């Protein structure tokens, strides 16, 4: 199966939460949400973001909005005004997660309109 970017089937929004950030991944279709709920696990996101976030990852789901919310525990280099990083608020972490390459079934792609 060809690798496809997560951005093809999801949107994202991110921001700071204490010393970490949250990344809300929003599925573009019901089919995409069902697939992502299985495939986009805490482990997958933790591995993809491991350089940015040395800490743990916790996932919450909000089925009513097709949102998978990932909490990255240590992604800001200290957080708040203690961070020296350019992206001290995790504003770009959503787009970083959307760069993830996945094996997305053709049926999911067919059921999800492209941007």
């Amino acid at each position: 199966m060809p690798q496809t970017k997560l951005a093809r089937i999801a949107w994202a929004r991110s921001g700071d939460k204490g010393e970490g950030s949250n990344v809300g991944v929003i599925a573009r279709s019901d089919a995409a949400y069902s697939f992502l709920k299985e495939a986009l696990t805490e482990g997958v996101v933790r591995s993809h973001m491991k350089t940015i976030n040395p800490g743990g990852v916790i996932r919450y789901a909000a089925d009513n909005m097709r949102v998978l919310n990932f909490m990255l525990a240590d992604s800001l280099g200290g957080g708040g005004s203690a961070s020296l990083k350019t992206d001290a608020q995790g504003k770009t972490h959503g787009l970083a997660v959307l760069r993830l390459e996945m094996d997305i079934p053709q049926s999911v792609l067919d059921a999800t309109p492209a941007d």
Partner: protein
Amino acid sequence: MPAKDKVLIANGQGFWGDSILGPIRLVNEGPLDYLTLDYLAEVTMSILQKLRSRKPEMGYATDFVRLIDRILPQIVEKDIKVIANAGGVNPHACKDAVLAVIAKHGVKGVKVAVVEGDDILDQLDDLMGQGEDLANMDTGAPLSSVRDSVTSANVYLGAFPIAEALGQGAQIVITGRGTDPGLVLAPMIHEFGWGEDELDRLAAGTVAGHIVECGAQCTGGNYTDWRKIPNMARIGYPIIEASSDGRFVVTKHDGTGGRVDISTVTHQLAYEMGDPSNYITPDVCADFTSFTLSDDGAERVAVEGVKGMLPTPTYKVSLSYHDGWKSTGQLTVSGPDALEKAKLCSDIVWERLASDGFEYAPEERLIEYVGANVCHDGIPVPGSEDPPEVVLRLGVKGPDRDKVNRFGMELVPLVTSGPPGVTGFAGGRPKATEIIGFWPALVRKDLIETRVSVFSSEG
């Protein structure tokens, strides 16, 4: 019977530093009942506390006073109520400045209310004496470990004191620290007569407040498919069309830029989210997994079915404390071989500092090659291996101010004593700035007293 069945509540300021054009356009470009404005971030209170310690009449968001000067005629003529957390750590000074501006316009009888009780800096020792350890919610450490360095302490108050101020006839309500959604929930409580036990309705108002609290972030700003957002230069700021039964619609004024649809609203619902099933405020715990979003015509999204649960017995407290010093500086390195030369520059800086006795531990320093995939570090991005130019961004932090300042002196010398093509050193030597630590804690609600007072302009 509620006085009104539908109320229009906008948010024109998403954070300290947001554009003044948002609220100015909101009062000019369409109908509106309430304008809410959020000026406070977590570090803002500490900065304001410092300003006040230098000048007793400062310590609030001066942007707000400039805004009132520009929109006063419209809000008086259209009877638009304004609710702002612009009071910072000195809400009465903010109120005095606002009253002076209203007097300058020659308008008499405008009622300005102050909501206070959030500032507990002077009560900390009393509270700790009453058994409140104000432990850090993230680490569990007791406040006593940083007590001597604390620079501000503010409770996040809820919506009811603001509603009380509106009930006393205030046209402008100035608060200190409070929850952001509370600014939007308060007019619903006031207009519809919602009680503290109407949890689903309070939760609905809280969800509405969360959607609009970052201004244009729910109307197409910071949206993934950015090419699909029309006219971002004139992006419309969000408006909640609230109903007495708790159902509400997210919209914006006709003819403004941006977009309101289920996906732009959902983007903002996912912002700063923790556990979506338990969004805690002092007014209610809202379940963000409970409601449905639906299209309600062009640029309108309806939200209904929000469930609420009993609030907790505690307020969240935001404390700040002095946590050391930091300094960052940057140079631009052109190609050819920009990244390779930038890495050499970085090595040279650290080696020169070490040779003079200044060594910085890895966790005390930062090295970034901006342009070579800093933001998405570790994720393969084509083109980042050999960028045509790189901004070398270095930084240090630590408890010793002199050591942090010493770093800044070794950046600019690279222009003449490093590899070729190093430029962009405008701005001089980087200097140490204070790190303001953030300390989230909880305090029992029954130990906190809120006060509402109303004043009238004399023109």
